Protein backbone atom coordinates (compact mmCIF):
# COMPACT_ATOMS: atom_id res chain seq x y z
CA UNK A 1 0.00 0.00 0.00
CA UNK A 2 1.40 3.35 -0.94
CA UNK A 3 1.20 5.16 2.32
CA UNK A 4 1.81 8.79 2.95
CA UNK A 5 1.32 10.12 6.42
CA UNK A 6 -0.09 6.80 7.56
CA UNK A 7 1.10 5.90 11.01
CA UNK A 8 -0.42 3.00 12.86
CA UNK A 9 -3.36 2.92 10.43
CA UNK A 10 -4.12 6.57 11.08
CA UNK A 11 -3.89 9.34 8.53
CA UNK A 12 -3.08 12.44 10.56
CA UNK A 13 -4.04 15.89 9.37
CA UNK A 14 -4.82 14.83 5.82
CA UNK A 15 -7.44 13.35 3.52
CA UNK A 16 -7.54 9.84 2.18
CA UNK A 17 -8.92 8.76 -1.15
CA UNK A 18 -9.47 5.54 -3.03
CA UNK A 19 -9.50 6.04 -6.79
CA UNK A 20 -9.99 3.87 -9.85
CA UNK A 21 -10.19 4.54 -13.59
CA UNK A 22 -10.93 1.05 -14.95
CA UNK A 23 -14.17 1.02 -16.93
CA UNK A 24 -16.85 -1.44 -15.84
CA UNK A 25 -15.48 -2.04 -12.37
CA UNK A 26 -16.54 -0.63 -9.02
CA UNK A 27 -14.21 1.26 -6.76
CA UNK A 28 -14.88 0.38 -3.14
CA UNK A 29 -13.95 1.79 0.22
CA UNK A 30 -14.97 -0.85 2.66
CA UNK A 31 -15.15 -1.61 6.34
CA UNK A 32 -15.30 -5.36 6.88
CA UNK A 33 -15.68 -7.35 10.07
CA UNK A 34 -15.26 -11.04 9.39
CA UNK A 35 -16.30 -12.31 12.80
CA UNK A 36 -19.70 -13.94 12.69
CA UNK A 37 -19.99 -15.09 16.28
CA UNK A 38 -20.80 -11.94 18.22
CA UNK A 39 -23.67 -9.51 17.82
CA UNK A 40 -21.37 -6.67 18.82
CA UNK A 41 -18.87 -7.38 16.03
CA UNK A 42 -20.02 -4.39 14.00
CA UNK A 43 -18.72 -2.98 10.72
CA UNK A 44 -18.75 0.78 11.06
CA UNK A 45 -18.00 3.70 8.81
CA UNK A 46 -17.88 6.88 10.81
CA UNK A 47 -17.84 10.58 10.03
CA UNK A 48 -16.99 12.64 13.09
CA UNK A 49 -16.69 16.39 13.33
CA UNK A 50 -14.52 18.23 15.82
CA UNK A 51 -17.35 19.12 18.20
CA UNK A 52 -20.38 21.33 18.59
CA UNK A 53 -18.47 24.37 17.28
CA UNK A 54 -17.01 22.47 14.34
CA UNK A 55 -18.29 21.52 10.91
CA UNK A 56 -20.76 18.88 9.75
CA UNK A 57 -20.36 15.11 9.82
CA UNK A 58 -21.78 13.62 6.66
CA UNK A 59 -21.74 11.29 3.69
CA UNK A 60 -21.69 12.82 0.21
CA UNK A 61 -22.77 11.28 -3.09
CA UNK A 62 -21.51 13.06 -6.19
CA UNK A 63 -21.77 12.72 -9.93
CA UNK A 64 -19.18 15.14 -11.38
CA UNK A 65 -21.00 17.70 -13.55
CA UNK A 66 -24.22 16.03 -12.31
CA UNK A 67 -26.07 15.63 -9.02
CA UNK A 68 -24.81 16.12 -5.49
CA UNK A 69 -26.51 14.73 -2.38
CA UNK A 70 -25.28 15.09 1.18
CA UNK A 71 -26.61 13.21 4.17
CA UNK A 72 -25.48 13.98 7.66
CA UNK A 73 -25.60 16.18 10.73
CA UNK A 74 -26.14 19.89 10.12
CA UNK A 75 -24.03 21.06 13.03
CA UNK A 76 -24.86 24.72 12.40
CA UNK A 77 -28.61 24.25 12.99
CA UNK A 78 -30.07 24.02 16.48
CA UNK A 79 -30.90 20.49 17.49
CA UNK A 80 -28.29 18.93 15.18
CA UNK A 81 -30.85 17.63 12.67
CA UNK A 82 -30.01 14.72 10.43
CA UNK A 83 -30.37 16.35 7.03
CA UNK A 84 -30.48 15.27 3.40
CA UNK A 85 -29.65 18.05 0.94
CA UNK A 86 -28.90 18.35 -2.75
CA UNK A 87 -25.55 20.07 -2.28
CA UNK A 88 -22.01 19.39 -1.16
CA UNK A 89 -22.75 19.39 2.60
CA UNK A 90 -25.80 19.30 4.92
CA UNK A 91 -25.59 23.03 5.65
CA UNK A 92 -26.03 24.16 2.05
CA UNK A 93 -28.43 23.60 -0.83
CA UNK A 94 -32.05 22.56 -0.62
CA UNK A 95 -33.19 20.43 2.30
CA UNK A 96 -34.94 17.33 0.98
CA UNK A 97 -35.50 15.69 4.36
CA UNK A 98 -34.72 16.66 7.90
CA UNK A 99 -35.00 14.61 11.09
CA UNK A 100 -35.05 16.57 14.31
CA UNK A 101 -35.08 18.29 16.61
CA UNK A 102 -37.37 16.06 18.67
CA UNK A 103 -37.04 13.55 15.80
CA UNK A 104 -39.91 15.05 13.83
CA UNK A 105 -39.33 14.31 10.18
CA UNK A 106 -40.20 16.88 7.55
CA UNK A 107 -39.89 16.92 3.78
CA UNK A 108 -39.64 20.61 2.85
CA UNK A 109 -39.84 20.08 -0.91
CA UNK A 110 -42.51 17.37 -0.97
CA UNK A 111 -45.65 18.31 -2.90
CA UNK A 112 -48.15 19.76 -0.40
CA UNK A 113 -50.75 22.49 -0.78
CA UNK A 114 -53.63 24.17 0.98
CA UNK A 115 -55.84 26.50 -1.07
CA UNK A 116 -59.00 28.18 0.12
CA UNK A 117 -61.77 30.46 -1.03
CA UNK A 118 -61.05 33.89 0.42
CA UNK A 119 -63.38 36.32 -1.36
CA UNK A 120 -66.70 34.63 -2.04
CA UNK A 121 -67.08 33.08 -5.48
CA UNK A 122 -70.69 34.14 -6.15
CA UNK A 123 -73.45 32.75 -8.35
CA UNK A 124 -71.58 29.73 -9.66
CA UNK A 125 -74.32 27.10 -9.58
CA UNK A 126 -77.80 26.41 -8.26
CA UNK A 127 -79.36 26.02 -11.68
CA UNK A 128 -77.90 22.56 -12.35
CA UNK A 129 -74.80 24.02 -13.95
CA UNK A 130 -71.49 22.39 -13.04
CA UNK A 131 -68.81 24.65 -11.66
CA UNK A 132 -65.10 23.84 -11.47
CA UNK A 133 -63.64 25.62 -8.47
CA UNK A 134 -61.42 28.56 -9.33
CA UNK A 135 -62.85 29.15 -12.80
CA UNK A 136 -64.31 32.57 -11.98
CA UNK A 137 -62.30 33.55 -8.90
CA UNK A 138 -58.84 32.30 -8.03
CA UNK A 139 -58.42 30.50 -4.74
CA UNK A 140 -55.93 31.82 -2.18
CA UNK A 141 -52.92 29.83 -1.07
CA UNK A 142 -52.01 29.09 2.55
CA UNK A 143 -49.04 27.14 1.23
CA UNK A 144 -47.96 25.57 -2.05
CA UNK A 145 -44.84 23.62 -1.26
CA UNK A 146 -43.14 22.70 -4.55
CA UNK A 147 -45.37 25.07 -6.60
CA UNK A 148 -47.64 22.46 -8.16
CA UNK A 149 -50.90 24.41 -7.95
CA UNK A 150 -52.68 26.66 -10.42
CA UNK A 151 -55.04 28.67 -8.24
CA UNK A 152 -57.58 29.42 -10.99
CA UNK A 153 -58.29 30.57 -14.50
CA UNK A 154 -59.99 29.08 -17.52
CA UNK A 155 -59.32 25.54 -16.33
CA UNK A 156 -60.10 26.36 -12.73
CA UNK A 157 -58.03 25.35 -9.70
CA UNK A 158 -55.93 22.27 -10.31
CA UNK A 159 -52.87 20.43 -9.16
CA UNK A 160 -50.41 19.12 -11.73
CA UNK A 161 -48.70 16.10 -10.18
CA UNK A 162 -44.93 16.60 -10.13
CA UNK A 163 -44.28 12.85 -9.98
CA UNK A 164 -46.26 9.61 -10.25
CA UNK A 165 -47.55 8.60 -6.85
CA UNK A 166 -50.40 8.38 -4.39
CA UNK A 167 -51.80 11.69 -3.26
CA UNK A 168 -54.09 12.47 -0.32
CA UNK A 169 -56.76 14.76 -1.67
CA UNK A 170 -59.30 16.42 0.59
CA UNK A 171 -61.62 19.34 0.53
CA UNK A 172 -64.20 21.15 2.61
CA UNK A 173 -67.23 22.58 0.90
CA UNK A 174 -70.05 24.80 2.11
CA UNK A 175 -73.09 25.18 -0.10
CA UNK A 176 -75.03 28.43 0.38
CA UNK A 177 -78.76 28.84 -0.30
CA UNK A 178 -79.21 25.25 0.76
CA UNK A 179 -82.71 25.88 2.05
CA UNK A 180 -83.90 25.82 -1.56
CA UNK A 181 -81.42 23.39 -3.08
CA UNK A 182 -82.72 19.91 -3.67
CA UNK A 183 -79.56 18.21 -4.87
CA UNK A 184 -75.81 18.62 -4.55
CA UNK A 185 -73.19 16.66 -6.47
CA UNK A 186 -69.57 17.04 -5.49
CA UNK A 187 -66.75 15.45 -7.45
CA UNK A 188 -63.00 15.07 -7.33
CA UNK A 189 -61.86 14.91 -10.96
CA UNK A 190 -58.49 13.39 -11.73
CA UNK A 191 -56.92 12.47 -15.05
CA UNK A 192 -57.58 8.83 -14.18
CA UNK A 193 -60.84 8.82 -12.20
CA UNK A 194 -63.82 10.77 -10.98
CA UNK A 195 -64.72 10.37 -7.33
CA UNK A 196 -68.21 11.37 -6.20
CA UNK A 197 -67.53 12.79 -2.75
CA UNK A 198 -71.08 13.79 -1.91
CA UNK A 199 -74.54 13.33 -3.36
CA UNK A 200 -77.18 14.74 -1.06
CA UNK A 201 -80.22 16.95 -0.56
CA UNK A 202 -79.01 20.15 1.13
CA UNK A 203 -82.53 21.43 1.68
CA UNK A 204 -83.15 18.66 4.20
CA UNK A 205 -80.12 19.29 6.33
CA UNK A 206 -79.01 22.89 6.04
CA UNK A 207 -77.97 25.08 8.95
CA UNK A 208 -80.92 27.43 9.55
CA UNK A 209 -78.68 30.28 10.60
CA UNK A 210 -76.59 30.46 7.45
CA UNK A 211 -78.84 28.49 5.10
CA UNK A 212 -75.61 26.60 4.40
CA UNK A 213 -74.74 22.95 4.22
CA UNK A 214 -71.12 21.92 4.71
CA UNK A 215 -69.22 18.70 4.45
CA UNK A 216 -65.72 17.35 3.91
CA UNK A 217 -64.44 14.77 1.47
CA UNK A 218 -61.17 12.84 1.74
CA UNK A 219 -59.83 10.50 -0.91
CA UNK A 220 -56.43 9.03 -1.76
CA UNK A 221 -55.90 9.24 -5.51
CA UNK A 222 -53.35 7.87 -7.93
CA UNK A 223 -51.77 10.43 -10.22
CA UNK A 224 -49.14 9.97 -12.87
CA UNK A 225 -46.59 12.71 -13.44
CA UNK A 226 -48.34 15.74 -15.00
CA UNK A 227 -51.80 14.34 -14.25
CA UNK A 228 -54.22 16.89 -12.89
CA UNK A 229 -56.89 16.88 -10.22
CA UNK A 230 -59.60 19.44 -9.53
CA UNK A 231 -62.94 19.92 -7.78
CA UNK A 232 -66.35 20.55 -9.28
CA UNK A 233 -69.83 20.78 -7.87
CA UNK A 234 -73.36 21.08 -9.13
CA UNK A 235 -76.38 22.30 -7.16
CA UNK A 236 -79.96 22.01 -8.37
CA UNK A 237 -83.22 23.88 -7.77
CA UNK A 238 -81.82 26.78 -5.80
CA UNK A 239 -84.00 29.32 -7.56
CA UNK A 240 -81.44 30.17 -10.20
CA UNK A 241 -77.68 30.47 -10.34
CA UNK A 242 -77.45 31.88 -6.83
CA UNK A 243 -75.22 29.43 -4.97
CA UNK A 244 -71.82 30.74 -3.97
CA UNK A 245 -68.60 29.30 -2.66
CA UNK A 246 -68.40 31.22 0.58
CA UNK A 247 -65.26 33.06 1.56
CA UNK A 248 -63.86 33.53 5.02
CA UNK A 249 -66.52 33.70 7.71
CA UNK A 250 -65.48 35.11 11.07
CA UNK A 251 -61.88 34.27 10.03
CA UNK A 252 -62.86 30.64 9.48
CA UNK A 253 -62.04 28.89 6.22
CA UNK A 254 -65.21 27.33 4.82
CA UNK A 255 -64.19 26.14 1.37
CA UNK A 256 -60.77 24.65 0.82
CA UNK A 257 -58.79 22.08 -1.14
CA UNK A 258 -55.81 20.37 0.49
CA UNK A 259 -53.48 17.85 -1.08
CA UNK A 260 -50.15 16.14 -0.42
CA UNK A 261 -48.01 13.42 -1.91
CA UNK A 262 -48.21 10.38 0.38
CA UNK A 263 -45.94 7.87 -1.32
Amino acid at each position, binding site marked *: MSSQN*IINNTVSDNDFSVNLATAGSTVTLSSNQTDNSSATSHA*EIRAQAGGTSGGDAFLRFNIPSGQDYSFGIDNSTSGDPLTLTDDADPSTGNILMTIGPSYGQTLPLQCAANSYVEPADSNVTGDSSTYVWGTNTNLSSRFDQNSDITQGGASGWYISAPISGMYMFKSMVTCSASNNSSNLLYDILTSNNTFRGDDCAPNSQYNTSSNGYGTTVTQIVELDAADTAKIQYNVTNSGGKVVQLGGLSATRIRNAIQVYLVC
Partner: protein
Amino acid sequence: MVTQNNLNNTVIDNDFSINRATASTSVIASVAHSDNTNTSSNAELLAENGGASGGDAFLRLNIPSGQDYCIGIDNTSSDSLVFGDDVNPSTGNNIMNITSAGEITRPLQSAFAAYLATDDPNVTGAGTTARIGLGTALTEIFDQNSDFDTNGTFTAPITGKYHLGLILCAEGVTSAGTRSSVTMATSNVNYLGEQTDFFAQLNSNSGLYSTCASIFTDMDAGDTNTNNFIVSIMAGDTVDIKGLVTGKIKTGTWGYLVL
Protein backbone atom coordinates in the same frame (compact mmCIF):
# COMPACT_ATOMS: atom_id res chain seq x y z
CA MET B 1 6.47 6.26 7.55
CA VAL B 2 5.28 3.36 9.57
CA THR B 3 2.48 1.20 8.26
CA GLN B 4 0.94 -1.51 10.34
CA ASN B 5 -1.08 -4.37 8.84
CA ASN B 6 -1.33 -2.76 5.42
CA LEU B 7 -1.09 -5.40 2.72
CA ASN B 8 -2.23 -5.00 -0.88
CA ASN B 9 -4.32 -1.97 0.06
CA THR B 10 -6.08 -3.97 2.77
CA VAL B 11 -5.87 -3.30 6.48
CA ILE B 12 -6.12 -6.72 8.07
CA ASP B 13 -7.63 -7.20 11.50
CA ASN B 14 -7.46 -3.57 12.48
CA ASP B 15 -9.18 -0.22 12.20
CA PHE B 16 -8.20 2.63 9.95
CA SER B 17 -8.91 6.27 10.61
CA ILE B 18 -8.37 9.60 8.94
CA ASN B 19 -8.05 12.58 11.25
CA ARG B 20 -7.46 16.27 10.95
CA ALA B 21 -7.19 19.14 13.39
CA THR B 22 -6.70 22.12 11.05
CA ALA B 23 -9.46 24.71 11.48
CA SER B 24 -11.64 25.67 8.48
CA THR B 25 -10.77 22.56 6.52
CA SER B 26 -12.68 19.36 5.93
CA VAL B 27 -11.22 15.94 6.47
CA ILE B 28 -12.26 13.68 3.64
CA ALA B 29 -12.22 9.97 3.07
CA SER B 30 -13.24 9.65 -0.51
CA VAL B 31 -13.96 6.91 -2.95
CA ALA B 32 -13.85 8.12 -6.55
CA HIS B 33 -14.09 6.50 -9.94
CA SER B 34 -12.78 8.60 -12.81
CA ASP B 35 -14.18 6.49 -15.65
CA ASN B 36 -17.13 8.17 -17.30
CA THR B 37 -17.81 5.67 -20.10
CA ASN B 38 -19.39 2.67 -18.39
CA THR B 39 -22.48 2.58 -16.17
CA SER B 40 -20.93 -0.18 -14.08
CA SER B 41 -18.08 2.09 -13.04
CA ASN B 42 -19.56 2.67 -9.60
CA ALA B 43 -18.17 4.40 -6.55
CA GLU B 44 -19.09 2.38 -3.49
CA LEU B 45 -18.71 2.86 0.21
CA LEU B 46 -19.26 -0.50 1.87
CA ALA B 47 -19.82 -1.61 5.44
CA GLU B 48 -19.93 -5.38 5.67
CA ASN B 49 -20.22 -7.48 8.78
CA GLY B 50 -19.28 -11.10 9.35
CA GLY B 51 -22.70 -12.62 8.64
CA ALA B 52 -26.11 -13.28 10.12
CA SER B 53 -24.65 -14.00 13.56
CA GLY B 54 -22.35 -11.00 13.54
CA GLY B 55 -22.85 -7.35 14.42
CA ASP B 56 -24.40 -4.51 12.44
CA ALA B 57 -23.23 -2.84 9.23
CA PHE B 58 -23.69 0.90 9.37
CA LEU B 59 -22.61 4.48 8.89
CA ARG B 60 -22.21 6.58 12.01
CA LEU B 61 -22.35 10.36 12.14
CA ASN B 62 -21.05 11.95 15.30
CA ILE B 63 -20.63 15.37 16.86
CA PRO B 64 -18.47 14.80 19.98
CA SER B 65 -20.36 15.97 23.07
CA GLY B 66 -23.30 16.48 20.70
CA GLN B 67 -25.52 14.32 18.54
CA ASP B 68 -24.99 10.77 17.33
CA TYR B 69 -26.87 9.28 14.36
CA CYS B 70 -26.39 5.96 12.66
CA ILE B 71 -27.89 4.53 9.50
CA GLY B 72 -27.47 0.87 8.82
CA ILE B 73 -28.62 -2.70 9.08
CA ASP B 74 -29.81 -3.83 12.50
CA ASN B 75 -28.62 -7.40 12.28
CA THR B 76 -30.48 -8.29 15.47
CA SER B 77 -33.86 -7.14 14.15
CA SER B 78 -34.78 -8.89 10.90
CA ASP B 79 -32.17 -6.93 8.94
CA SER B 80 -34.14 -3.70 8.85
CA LEU B 81 -32.47 -0.53 7.63
CA VAL B 82 -32.55 1.64 10.74
CA PHE B 83 -32.07 5.34 11.31
CA GLY B 84 -31.08 5.63 14.97
CA ASP B 85 -29.80 8.25 17.37
CA ASP B 86 -27.03 6.25 18.99
CA VAL B 87 -23.68 4.68 18.19
CA ASN B 88 -25.11 1.71 16.27
CA PRO B 89 -28.49 0.60 14.86
CA SER B 90 -29.13 -1.86 17.69
CA THR B 91 -29.13 0.77 20.45
CA GLY B 92 -30.82 4.08 21.15
CA ASN B 93 -34.08 5.28 19.62
CA ASN B 94 -35.27 3.96 16.28
CA ILE B 95 -36.19 7.11 14.32
CA MET B 96 -37.09 5.43 11.04
CA ASN B 97 -37.25 1.76 10.15
CA ILE B 98 -37.32 0.28 6.65
CA THR B 99 -37.94 -3.45 6.58
CA SER B 100 -36.31 -5.69 4.02
CA ALA B 101 -39.76 -5.85 2.36
CA GLY B 102 -39.79 -2.05 2.00
CA GLU B 103 -42.33 -1.05 4.64
CA ILE B 104 -41.37 2.21 6.31
CA THR B 105 -42.35 3.20 9.85
CA ARG B 106 -41.32 6.20 11.87
CA PRO B 107 -41.74 5.24 15.53
CA LEU B 108 -41.03 8.73 16.92
CA GLN B 109 -43.03 10.76 14.38
CA SER B 110 -45.74 12.82 16.03
CA ALA B 111 -49.05 10.93 15.77
CA PHE B 112 -52.02 10.54 18.06
CA ALA B 113 -55.55 9.19 18.34
CA ALA B 114 -57.90 9.56 21.29
CA TYR B 115 -61.54 8.92 22.01
CA LEU B 116 -64.26 9.92 24.42
CA ALA B 117 -64.95 6.95 26.70
CA THR B 118 -67.93 8.42 28.57
CA ASP B 119 -70.48 11.05 27.62
CA ASP B 120 -69.69 14.73 27.96
CA PRO B 121 -73.20 15.79 29.03
CA ASN B 122 -75.11 19.04 28.50
CA VAL B 123 -72.32 20.93 26.76
CA THR B 124 -74.13 22.86 24.05
CA GLY B 125 -77.54 23.58 22.54
CA ALA B 126 -78.05 27.25 23.36
CA GLY B 127 -75.01 28.43 21.47
CA THR B 128 -72.33 27.42 23.96
CA THR B 129 -69.02 26.35 22.43
CA ALA B 130 -68.15 22.80 23.52
CA ARG B 131 -64.51 21.86 23.16
CA ILE B 132 -64.05 18.16 22.62
CA GLY B 133 -62.18 16.72 25.60
CA LEU B 134 -62.50 19.74 27.86
CA GLY B 135 -65.52 18.69 29.94
CA THR B 136 -64.81 14.96 29.91
CA ALA B 137 -61.22 14.00 29.24
CA LEU B 138 -60.40 11.91 26.20
CA THR B 139 -58.69 8.52 26.41
CA GLU B 140 -55.56 8.09 24.36
CA ILE B 141 -55.31 5.18 21.94
CA PHE B 142 -51.76 6.20 21.14
CA ASP B 143 -49.73 9.37 21.52
CA GLN B 144 -46.48 8.87 19.68
CA ASN B 145 -44.04 11.62 20.75
CA SER B 146 -46.38 12.78 23.56
CA ASP B 147 -47.78 15.89 21.85
CA PHE B 148 -51.44 15.43 22.83
CA ASP B 149 -53.19 16.05 26.12
CA THR B 150 -56.43 14.39 27.07
CA ASN B 151 -58.23 17.72 27.34
CA GLY B 152 -58.17 17.77 23.55
CA THR B 153 -55.17 19.96 22.76
CA PHE B 154 -52.55 18.87 20.27
CA THR B 155 -49.31 20.87 20.30
CA ALA B 156 -47.09 20.75 17.22
CA PRO B 157 -43.58 19.62 18.20
CA ILE B 158 -41.98 21.02 15.05
CA THR B 159 -42.91 23.35 12.20
CA GLY B 160 -44.53 21.31 9.45
CA LYS B 161 -47.72 20.23 7.71
CA TYR B 162 -50.18 18.19 9.76
CA HIS B 163 -53.25 16.12 8.93
CA LEU B 164 -55.78 16.45 11.74
CA GLY B 165 -59.25 15.01 12.06
CA LEU B 166 -62.19 14.12 14.24
CA ILE B 167 -65.31 12.03 14.48
CA LEU B 168 -68.14 13.37 16.58
CA CYS B 169 -71.45 11.99 17.80
CA ALA B 170 -74.09 13.86 19.78
CA GLU B 171 -77.58 13.39 21.12
CA GLY B 172 -80.20 15.31 23.05
CA VAL B 173 -81.23 17.76 20.37
CA THR B 174 -84.74 19.11 20.22
CA SER B 175 -86.57 20.24 17.11
CA ALA B 176 -85.23 23.74 17.73
CA GLY B 177 -81.67 22.56 17.21
CA THR B 178 -81.40 23.36 13.55
CA ARG B 179 -78.02 25.03 13.68
CA SER B 180 -74.80 23.21 14.36
CA SER B 181 -71.21 23.56 13.32
CA VAL B 182 -67.84 21.96 13.91
CA THR B 183 -64.75 24.17 13.94
CA MET B 184 -61.22 22.83 13.85
CA ALA B 185 -59.15 25.60 15.41
CA THR B 186 -55.41 26.02 14.97
CA SER B 187 -53.09 28.83 16.03
CA ASN B 188 -52.74 29.97 12.42
CA VAL B 189 -56.27 29.58 11.09
CA ASN B 190 -59.67 28.11 11.91
CA TYR B 191 -61.56 25.73 9.65
CA LEU B 192 -65.32 25.26 9.50
CA GLY B 193 -65.45 21.49 9.33
CA GLU B 194 -69.21 21.18 8.95
CA GLN B 195 -72.35 23.19 9.35
CA THR B 196 -75.72 21.57 9.18
CA ASP B 197 -79.23 21.22 10.54
CA PHE B 198 -78.52 18.99 13.51
CA PHE B 199 -82.13 17.95 14.08
CA ALA B 200 -82.70 17.04 10.44
CA GLN B 201 -79.69 14.75 10.45
CA LEU B 202 -80.68 12.67 13.47
CA ASN B 203 -80.76 8.94 12.99
CA SER B 204 -84.42 8.12 13.61
CA ASN B 205 -83.58 4.84 15.32
CA SER B 206 -80.77 5.87 17.64
CA GLY B 207 -81.55 9.57 18.00
CA LEU B 208 -77.87 10.22 17.39
CA TYR B 209 -76.10 12.56 15.01
CA SER B 210 -72.63 11.77 13.70
CA THR B 211 -70.17 13.64 11.54
CA CYS B 212 -66.48 13.70 10.70
CA ALA B 213 -64.02 16.30 9.47
CA SER B 214 -60.35 16.63 8.72
CA ILE B 215 -57.87 19.27 7.64
CA PHE B 216 -54.36 19.38 6.19
CA THR B 217 -52.78 22.47 7.61
CA ASP B 218 -49.57 24.27 8.45
CA MET B 219 -48.47 24.52 12.07
CA ASP B 220 -45.42 26.16 13.62
CA ALA B 221 -43.59 24.56 16.51
CA GLY B 222 -45.71 25.15 19.64
CA ASP B 223 -48.92 25.86 17.71
CA THR B 224 -52.02 24.11 19.00
CA ASN B 225 -55.17 22.48 17.64
CA THR B 226 -58.50 22.06 19.41
CA ASN B 227 -61.93 21.12 18.10
CA ASN B 228 -65.20 22.84 18.91
CA PHE B 229 -68.83 21.88 18.48
CA ILE B 230 -71.74 24.33 18.69
CA VAL B 231 -75.50 23.77 18.59
CA SER B 232 -77.70 26.87 18.69
CA ILE B 233 -81.28 28.04 19.23
CA MET B 234 -82.30 25.39 21.76
CA ALA B 235 -83.60 26.57 25.12
CA GLY B 236 -80.64 25.19 27.03
CA ASP B 237 -77.39 23.31 26.78
CA THR B 238 -78.87 19.83 26.81
CA VAL B 239 -76.87 18.28 23.98
CA ASP B 240 -74.42 15.54 24.97
CA ILE B 241 -71.24 14.58 23.13
CA LYS B 242 -71.32 10.82 23.11
CA GLY B 243 -68.76 8.48 24.55
CA LEU B 244 -68.59 4.78 23.76
CA VAL B 245 -71.87 3.29 22.53
CA THR B 246 -72.00 -0.51 22.82
CA GLY B 247 -68.22 -0.50 22.82
CA LYS B 248 -67.91 1.53 19.64
CA ILE B 249 -65.94 4.76 19.49
CA LYS B 250 -68.33 7.53 18.49
CA THR B 251 -66.27 10.62 19.29
CA GLY B 252 -62.54 11.07 18.94
CA THR B 253 -59.70 13.09 17.45
CA TRP B 254 -56.57 12.12 15.57
CA GLY B 255 -53.63 13.67 13.80
CA TYR B 256 -50.09 13.22 12.57
CA LEU B 257 -47.16 15.11 11.16
CA VAL B 258 -47.15 14.51 7.42
CA LEU B 259 -44.12 16.44 6.23
